[in-house]
């Protein structure tokens, strides 16, 4: 019998509303000996809560599962949930609360790069440890962050060759939201496109949150491309796919191959707009294993929504808590950043998407790239997958390879850049 998320929060709040409502000027009471406090930092309000709430839920669910099976070395995990409010300023403030005031040994959080960047100084200068579950652009080599989402080489190194060789499409139109992730994805894609004998006809950006796609889709139509590589993020995605169809483009002739379009966006746009398009991610709800099916079941029960979808960043939010647990155990229960960091290196876990391993050098995670084609039911059919997990290379755009790492446990070797 699983408790739902809200009840769980109520139960797990040892110091209830009264203490929390007090002006808060008191230093946190020493934590009970049989508990480990951890921070959770996602936007529960504001525009980004659309996605981030599911990440917070997945994290809470993992904590609950660990607690139900006896906790971490006999200690219960007590989550302190904070609201980043979709605003980097709030993120920064809450991160310093968790690290400096609550002194939690680890924090799980952030969806956007902007929010991660806003909290990074707190973790780096105060030596905290942040577990970041989202796919991102790479170019980061922090000793204080464990990255469990995909980096560009884990989304593109199979995708681009597959588009060119299997799908037979050679002329790319690259489109993305105007910030660093899509621009980096585009940079890596161009390298891969040229290596594989394709070409790109245009590379265009739109403001984040932009939802007027008339002009852009018109450009795509006129460009003579035969495939669209989309790095569009957030609610813009929905407007994009809808406009694409409204202007008479179809995915069987001119497919959209996306790096960010997940189950959430597909469900939101209505499956008929995405039928036949492709996405590359390490995790899809459609992964056909008992472990994944059980995971989806449990998640739906946990959030009390029989139609809830699971997606990549959410799955990472879930399994990274288990990696953390194993790291604490490996550290012999020593709750310091240095001990947990050492402990997490090389940890292996059987996640819903398969085996994940934390790279001991750059603290990113080995993941298995997969390509799915979206169907009528809003679910992907996995049509291509790497035989094994791929090593994360956050600096792949500058020539990083598995043999020649730029980011290693000693830090970033900037002479290689």
């Amino acid at each position, binding site marked *: 019998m699983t408790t739902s998320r809200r009840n769980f*929060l*109520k139960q797990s*709040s040892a110091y*209830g*509303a009264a203490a*929390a*409502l007090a*002006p*808060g*000027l008191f*230093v946190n009471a020493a934590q009970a000996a049989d508990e480990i406090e951890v921070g959770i930092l996602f936007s*529960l*309000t*504001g525009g980004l809560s659309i996605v981030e709430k599911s990440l917070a839920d997945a994290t809470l669910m993992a904590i609950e599962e660990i607690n139900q099976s006896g906790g971490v070395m006999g200690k219960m995990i007590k989550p302190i*949930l*904070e*609201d980043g*409010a979709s*605003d*980097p*300023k709030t993120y*920064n*403030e809450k991160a*310093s*609360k968790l690290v*400096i*005031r609550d002194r939690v040994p680890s924090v799980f959080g952030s969806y956007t*790069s*902007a929010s991660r*960047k*806003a909290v*990074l*100084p*707190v973790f*780096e*200068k105060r030596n905290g440890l942040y577990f970041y579950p989202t796919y991102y652009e790479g*170019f980061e080599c922090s000793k204080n962050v464990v990255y469990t989402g995909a980096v560009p080489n884990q989304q593109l190194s199979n995708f681009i060759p597959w588009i060119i060789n299997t799908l037979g499409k050679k002329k790319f139109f690259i489109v993305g939201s*105007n*910030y*660093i992730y899509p*621009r*980096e994805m585009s*940079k890596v894609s161009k390298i891969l496109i040229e290596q594989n004998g394709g070409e790109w006809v245009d590379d265009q950006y739109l*403001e*984040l949150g932009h939802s007027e796609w008339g002009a852009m889709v018109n450009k795509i139509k006129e460009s003579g491309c035969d495939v669209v590589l989309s790095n569009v993020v957030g609610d813009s995605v929905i407007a994009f796919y809808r406009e694409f169809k409204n202007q008479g483009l179809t995915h069987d002739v001119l497919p959209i191959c996306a790096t960010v379009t997940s189950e959430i966006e597909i469900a939101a746009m209505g499956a008929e707009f995405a039928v036949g398009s492709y996405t590359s991610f390490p995790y899809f709800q459609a992964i056909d294993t008992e472990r994944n099916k059980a995971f989806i079941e449990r998640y739906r029960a946990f959030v009390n929504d029989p139609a809830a979808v699971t997606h990549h960043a959410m799955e990472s939010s879930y399994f990274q808590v288990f990696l953390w647990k194993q790291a604490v155990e490996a550290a012999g229960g020593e709750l310091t950043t240095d001990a947990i960091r050492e402990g997490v290196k090389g940890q292996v876990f059987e996640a819903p998407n398969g085996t994940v391993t934390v790279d001991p050098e750059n603290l990113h995670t080995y993941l298995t790239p997969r390509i799915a084609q979206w169907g009528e039911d809003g679910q992907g059919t996995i049509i291509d997958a790497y035989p094994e997990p791929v090593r994360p290379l956050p600096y792949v*755009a*500058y020539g990083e390879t598995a043999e020649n790492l730029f980011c290693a446990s000693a830090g970033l070797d*900037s002479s290689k*850049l």
Partner: protein
Amino acid sequence: MQSGRFDSVGVDVVAYGAFILAILLLPLFLDDPFWLNRIAKYLVYGMLGVAIALSWGYAGILNLGQGLFFGMGAYMVAMSLKLQSSTSLQQGSDSPVPDFMLWNAQPGAPTELCCISPSSFLWLPFQAQWFGAVMALVVPVVIALALSSAIFRLRVSGVYVAIITLASVLLVRLLIVDAQPLTNGFNGLTDLGWLTVAGFEFDPYLTQTYYIVAVSLSLVLVLTRVLVGTRAGLILQSTRDDPNRARYLGFDVAAYQIFFFTVSAGIAGFAGMLYVIAAEFASPSFMDLAFSITMVVWAAVGGRSSLLGACIGAILINTIEATASESEMFQEAWRAIIGLIFILVVLFLPRGLAGVGQDLTARLIGMARRPSAAPDRQASRDAAE
């Protein structure tokens, strides 16, 4: 309408003095680096409240784009601190390059600050920290001067000023996000170094850093309070109440409006600089429309026509937000509570908390002298316009 109506100078000296004393003495009673840092950030917001009250309450100019000046101040000083960050490339040499410039550069571009991207040379002077600090004041002031000269010389007034400032902040935000090779776009400037003066590093969680903010706010409060009491301040208030009459009396109305708009922008820029010192990052979200409107609401809650009131309003709202959002009970509802507070204050306390305070003191003073000296509440409702 408010201060000056009754014996307010004496009252103000007591009120401002008490507030300044309170924020200066606070570290003696609060041995919690996190809360000290958090309050420092809220004092910065308080300074924004002062800037809003100065232009809105005293000059009748509603600036819905104050975030533009706050953001400019923040970016200027953040550029300097970024160049001192340990993450910058070639740190230690005489020309460090911010890390983000490298991954925004065209392949094969030289890794020199002068020419890594087309306008990266603009960063060169920011290698000197004093330059960033000075620019944090100069740039907002120059932009404000140019913008307000155009607005007020053309005699644009009222809500149209608000719309122009609103469009301006959105325009600048768009450009900053787009100029990614120069500004790091949407992610903003992060991984900054600390402010260093004469070898002393101002770690944001040190009491010393708190004092930089607290002393700055005290100075801003005193200076602006003195400023509005001067002849220029009085003339300005007359331009708010009736610009045409002020014009007939021979005053150059636009000059006063430009001056106060610019001073207000300068304060906002200064606040932006202090915020970066306390929070260690600058982001285009400082120029979000919601933030600029929120500032105005802080001032409305505290009292739009009281500098101190607006300042306290900002601090109070942020403290309520923080406590509500960190409590189990209100974690997801806190925004709704804030919305409700906004509505109720505008409806029932048009002069904000300062109005309540003024009424109370007036009544106390009145009771001490004659029972019927309370000021006319109704008259000050016009403060709304």
